[in-house]
């Protein structure tokens, strides 16, 4: 028995490295409080090492730790996204005035960020409901703390409290849902659940209750309507770096979990044949309908409310809700293609959303404001920054030749492929609506003159380089997206299912 534990260990080397990193960061922070650069270095190096190991690892598929967790291309892919996001966020944090003003707690900050990363990595590979719950809680608990990292700030503290209450409640409900599913199937292991459900003896109403309770937990993580309410408040209150991290990595982890749970639990694998456009689902579970409704609501409400926002972070928060809606569209297709579209979207989203938040952060560093009206005239004062912001926003809208277009394109492609034309129409109309508020930022930057005297703002080279690292892929993948699609098409494979 112990053997299996030992045999499993080599497969989770990246996780182990991250764990080691977090210990190291903690130790370092205890020993030398003032050396923030060293902390960044260690954290980044650790994450980078994990990333390196991850990419050099053969894409194997295996079941680890008594089916608690699996390793498969799907989880590897999401770990990649998460680690990359974490790396960027750590580097971003180095440039964040908000974060750096609290010198004393920097050690804890990086420790918590790395811990959160670890939690997410377990989330994406968990194949047991208990494990999902545990890793979700690991992620959540750390994020409650980092959201309130700027203790002096009322906003940050408030965000932290709200996040805590909402999160604890949601995960409680999710846990209850897990217990119900456990009761219905006698196991918490996903494929085991699937086997029981496939027999068709489970009470569907109860299963639906359990499933929806589970969805409350997932929905909270990916901020899908109507479980999204915490999002704007928390995104606005949290330090920008954390907002960025939550909006990308945490969401990715939530999505990965949802996708895995959906596919492994509800897919009728006995009926699966090669080339099926729709996956055959276990009878009686209205997965497609529920996901479609959620998707439509999520993107529509996200977009409509975003129209009214004046705070850039809040606006981006709503935008990220809407983006989750698009991704849910991909899920609603219940097909490998939709899944791979969502995954593609995440790569793209990684660059563009992090980029947008990064620019917002840099601007708030210098202007001390996140209000959209204070962005006026920035196009002249900080041209490079503004241009890259424009690129990110255009990409978020989904206009070629940016990567965002490819993301949307794939999603609509998958929708059309399964003939969900109504959803596709709603989706594209939504993207037209979204254009308006994204352009509001661009408009303020370029089309308006600043009220104050126009002094050019200079940013250090390092900050600009990081920006470039985000912008270049956003543009490059818009034109040459071959590798992206190949990657996601490979990565969509989950353990045990084609």
């Amino acid at each position, binding site marked *: 028995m112990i053997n299996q534990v030992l045999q499993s260990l080599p497969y989770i080397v990246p996780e182990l490295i991250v764990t080691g990193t977090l210990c190291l960061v903690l130790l370092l922070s205890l020993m030398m409080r003032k050396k923030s650069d060293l902390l960044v270095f260690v954290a980044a190096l650790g994450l980078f090492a994990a990333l390196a190991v991850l990419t050099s690892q053969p894409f194997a598929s295996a079941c680890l730790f008594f089916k608690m967790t699996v390793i498969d291309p799907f989880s590897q892919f999401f770990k990649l996204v998460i680690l990359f996001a974490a790396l960027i966020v750590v580097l971003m944090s180095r440039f964040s005035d908000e974060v750096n003003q609290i010198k004393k707690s920097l050690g804890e900050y990086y420790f918590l960020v790395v811990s959160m990363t670890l939690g997410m990595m377990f989330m994406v590979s968990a194949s047991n409901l*208990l494990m999902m719950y*545990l890793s979700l809680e690991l992620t959540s*608990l750390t994020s409650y703390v980092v959201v309130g990292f700027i203790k002096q700030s009322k906003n940050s503290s408030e965000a932290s409290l709200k996040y805590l209450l909402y999160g604890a*409640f949601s995960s409680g409900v999710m846990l209850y849902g897990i217990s119900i599913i*456990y009761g219905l199937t006698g196991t*918490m292991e996903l494929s085991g659940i699937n086997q029981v459900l496939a027999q068709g003896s489970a009470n569907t109403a109860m299963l639906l209750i359990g499933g929806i309770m589970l969805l409350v937990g997932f929905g909270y993580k990916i901020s899908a309507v109507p479980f999204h309410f915490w999002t704007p*408040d928390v995104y606005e209150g949290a330090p920008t770096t954390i907002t960025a991290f939550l909006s990308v990595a945490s969401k990715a982890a939530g999505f990965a979990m949802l996708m895995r749970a959906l596919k492994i639990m509800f897919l009728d694998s006995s009926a699966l044949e090669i080339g099926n456009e729709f996956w055959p689902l276990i009878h009686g579970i209205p997965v497609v309908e529920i996901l479609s409704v959620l998707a439509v609501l999520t993107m529509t409400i996200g977009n409509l409310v975003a129209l009214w926002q004046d705070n850039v972070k809040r606006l981006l928060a709503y935008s990220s809700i809407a983006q989750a809606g698009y991704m849910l569209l991909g899920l609603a297709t219940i097909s490998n293609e939709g899944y791979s579209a969502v995954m593609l979207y995440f790569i793209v989203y990684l660059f563009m959303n992090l980029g947008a938040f990064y620019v917002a952060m840099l601007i708030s560093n210098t202007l001390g404001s996140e209000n959209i009206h204070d962005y006026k005239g920035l196009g002249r004062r900080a041209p490079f920054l503004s241009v890259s912001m424009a690129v990110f926003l255009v990409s978020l809208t989904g206009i070629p030749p940016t990567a965002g277009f490819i993301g949307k394109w794939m999603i609509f492609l998958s929708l059309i492929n399964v003939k969900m034309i109504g959803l596709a129409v709603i989706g594209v109309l939504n993207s037209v609506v979204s254009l308006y508020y994204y352009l509001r930022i661009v408009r303020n930057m370029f089309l308006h003159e600043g009220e104050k005297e126009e002094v050019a703002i200079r940013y250090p080279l390092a900050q600009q380089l990081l920006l470039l690292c985000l912008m270049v892929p956003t543009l490059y993948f818009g034109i040459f997206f071959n590798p992206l699609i190949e990657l996601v098409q490979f990565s969509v494979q989950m353990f045990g299912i084609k």
Partner: protein
Amino acid sequence: MHITLTHYLLVSAALFSFGVFAVISKRNAIIVLMGIELILNSANINFLAFSRFGNLNMEGQMAAIFVIILAAAEAAIALAIVLNIFKRFNTVNVDEVSTLKD
């Protein structure tokens, strides 16, 4: 009559509902936290009941243990956050902590 699984489940349902009620209706953040503990406990009752009536299936037992561990961790962080809120806002009334909104 024998006490069946359903009896336990009904108790858990009641506990869960009271927990939810506490969470959504109480102004005091600490009572809200108590409500969350009630929810976790109700889930635990479920786990154990299923475990018991399923020939001592160990998964339920294990889940319950981890839930208790997590509850402890969560309580620690939650209380810290509430204390911090008290420091900033001089209140722990949840509805008064609402400067972030549209």
